[in-house]
């Protein structure tokens, strides 16, 4: 017994010595600290300290800000054929190196003015440019004004739909959709369905869900199924609902029981 105690003391002193060497403070808790720790253990531990502002990606923030910018409307564009435009752009030497913003969030207030069904599309400008190597595919016209830059944003020319002064000009939403989907289809690359590019804005369920003060679990399920009927039917065909298997703990395996939600489990609603 004494031998074991002396061993423990030797160990502790060794730890203290090492702690002192590498600058580890408080390696051995003092008695008062130990008491405090014991009291703290009984309480619910405080959540880890988080800073007041959560971490944000700087380029995402910049893209968000950029999406809100208003660009003055380009009234007139230069009329030239697609090939002429392509060749002229190539001659000017404009290319990937001239890209100022490699990432855009297509979240213009022009579109949101009329509807807000889907979240913004994240558009990787540089990636598209480096794969296509042809700016003229998207930047298909230039402003007529000679002082303007060769390429502008989509929202400079395409803003509100059905302008009476520009009846042939597409609105921003249609311009995006026609340009992106058309090209993706043609190239057989990239998403062509709604959810491939943007996430659906889920409506606020606070108003939609109607439940009593203290609902039964079955009432909650019923309320979900009121709108999501198909999701309920799908659930009945999933492995979560239909799992079963042999029970290895049946005595001597004399009675082979296929146990599981599909057979004998009780929490089937």
């Amino acid at each position, binding site marked *: 017994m004494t031998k074991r105690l002396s061993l423990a003391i030797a160990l502790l002193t060794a730890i203290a010595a090492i702690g002192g060497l590498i600058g580890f403070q408080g390696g051995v808790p003092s008695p008062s600290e130990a008491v405090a720790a014991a009291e703290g253990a009984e309480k619910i531990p405080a959540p880890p300290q988080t800073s007041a502002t959560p971490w944000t990606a700087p380029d995402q923030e910049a893209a968000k800000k950029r999406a809100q910018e208003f660009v003055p409307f380009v009234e007139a564009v230069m009329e030239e054929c697609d090939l002429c435009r392509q060749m002229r752009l190539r001659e000017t030497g404009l290319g990937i190196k001239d890209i100022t913003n490699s990432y855009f969030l297509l979240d213009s207030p022009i579109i949101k003015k*009329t509807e807000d*069904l889907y979240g913004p599309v994240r558009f990787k400008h540089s990636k598209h440019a480096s794969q296509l190597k042809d700016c003229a595919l998207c930047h298909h016209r230039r402003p007529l004004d000679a002082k303007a830059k060769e390429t502008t944003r989509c929202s400079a020319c395409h803003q509100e*739909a*059905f302008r009476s002064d520009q009846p042939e000009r*597409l609105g921003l939403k*249609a311009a995006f959709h*026609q340009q992106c*989907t058309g090209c993706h289809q043609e190239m057989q690359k990239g998403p062509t369905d*709604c959810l491939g590019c943007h996430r659906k804005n889920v409506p606020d369920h606070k108003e939609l869900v109607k439940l009593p003060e203290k609902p039964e679990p079955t009432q909650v399920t019923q309320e979900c199924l009121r709108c999501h009927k*198909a999701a309920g039917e799908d659930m009945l065909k999933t492995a979560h609902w239909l799992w079963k298997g042999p029970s290895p703990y049946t005595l001597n395996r004399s009675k082979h029981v296929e146990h599981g939600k599909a057979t004998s489990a009780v929490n089937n609603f």
Partner: protein
Amino acid sequence: MQLSRRGFFKVAGAAGAGVAASTRPAEAWQSRAPADPQGCLVDLTRCIGCRKCEQGCQTVNRLPAPEQPFDDLTVLDKKRRPDERTYTVINRYYPGRRDERDQLVPTFVKVQCMHCQDPACASACIVGALTKKENGAVHYDVTKCIGCRYCMVACPFEIPAYEYRDPITPRVMKCTFCYERVEKEGKRPGCAEICPVEAITFGRRSTLLKIARNRIKSNPASYVDRVYGEHEAGGTSWLYLSGVPFDRVGFIDVPHRPLTQLAESIQSSLFSYMWSPIVLFGMLSGVMWAFRNKGDRDTREKGGQP
């Protein structure tokens, strides 16, 4: 007085001729279409069949929610019609064109009220519940409607639907062209506003026709050279452009004259200056006059030979 058969026709003919001579021939039928209404141009080559227009319509007009959600595209597997719960539907057709992967290319067709320039439904309506408005909408006034459903019979596109399942306050249901929204709030129709690809262009009908002609001209390979609705039924506020012949994607052949023309000219020529009732009653009174002594003769005969 004994009236011979010849004598009767003399009297009746004279009465009829006298009335007919006093009236001028019926005036030629005149269209009451608004000069430059608003309309929509549906470009079937642009439509992707996403059913967002149905959703926009349902939201804007506060129609009942559909049985299957709007993002469920399996409903396109069968042809649908606008009914009393939906003002507009999208149908999918496979007109036969194949893409480079040998897949049939679908064409999606939006169906709704065409808002004719001279609407047959409004002409058939006996209480004036349906009227053609200055902005192009064929407007339905539920307070005037008596539920005779003549509009449903008259419509060449078979659009108006009736709330048969509502026994107390049934209404005729059809696309309103978002009349209140367009006229009072200055907005666009719900379907046109929500369309993600601007397959529906909203504007003045004359502008839309110009746009349509321009699109055909600048891209003749993608379009058939016809704007459905330019002349159909005397012109409609909704116009269609297609890349495939219209009869292959469910469009019906409608006469190019206003459908109201024949019925209204017959009716107006019959009733102008009320000549036909005057002739009718003139003839009848002639008959009565001619036979005025018949009863007397009977009594006289009886009296003469007791």
